[in-house]
């Protein structure tokens, strides 16, 4: 009889010990889960901050890209303007021949090119950061003082092109 009691006692003690171990293990796992949850929340917060910063950076980048596109467009217009200056095609389809013009009216063409040269010096100064003068900004037509025949797009932002 005492053997049966001893056996039952072992079973009870074993079950209680197993249960205790199970609960301890469960508590340990819960603590780890809690720690992980805290780490995860911290991670999420960091990601949120990072995401917000990325949004700000993305907007700043979009502005820079927009500025670059505007600059490229300006350069393209300047190039086309200069191409027109020396290789302009007239309404009758004739392409301007600067050599022919200079050969026939050398003094006039020299005067024009000297003026262009001075304008180009001014264009270089503007490209290096020199601010536009009031006269340059006020230009709306070619006969206005301050009109620049070499970098009109940059030097005369308010110029109104005649088609």
């Amino acid at each position, binding site marked *: 009889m005492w053997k049966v009691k001893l056996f039952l006692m072992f079973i009870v003690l074993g079950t209680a010990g197993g249960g205790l171990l199970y609960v301890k293990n469960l508590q340990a796992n819960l603590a780890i889960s809690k720690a992980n949850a805290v780490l995860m929340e911290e991670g999420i917060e960091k990601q949120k901050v990072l995401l917000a910063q990325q949004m700000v950076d993305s907007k700043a980048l979009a502005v820079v890209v927009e500025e670059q596109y505007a600059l490229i467009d300006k350069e393209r217009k300047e190039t086309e303007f200069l191409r027109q200056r020396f290789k302009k095609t007239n309404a009758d389809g004739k392409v301007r021949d600067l050599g022919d013009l200079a050969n026939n009216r050398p003094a*006039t063409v020299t005067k024009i090119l000297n003026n262009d040269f001075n304008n180009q010096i001014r264009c270089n100064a503007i490209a290096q950061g020199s601010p536009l003068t009031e006269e340059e900004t006020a230009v709306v037509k070619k006969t206005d003082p301050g009109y620049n*025949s070499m970098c009109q797009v940059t030097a005369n932002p308010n110029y109104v092109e*005649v088609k």
Partner: protein
Amino acid sequence: MKDTVIDILKSHFGRDKDITPETNMLNDLGGDDLDVVDVLMQIEEALKISIPEEETFDLQTVQQLLEVVEKHNVES
């Protein structure tokens, strides 16, 4: 003479352009100083005249052009 000049201007700047003596070749026709030189050469060739360069510096309006051309057209 006037018709020839206007015809040359229209051929150079565009048939659709409204050209009057008050027209400014730079401001109204989209031309530049080299266009004026080009037009002058065409006028000289068409009318068989020669216009001294010093008389054509800073020409802007069609009226100024007509006056200088008329002066030398009469002389020839």
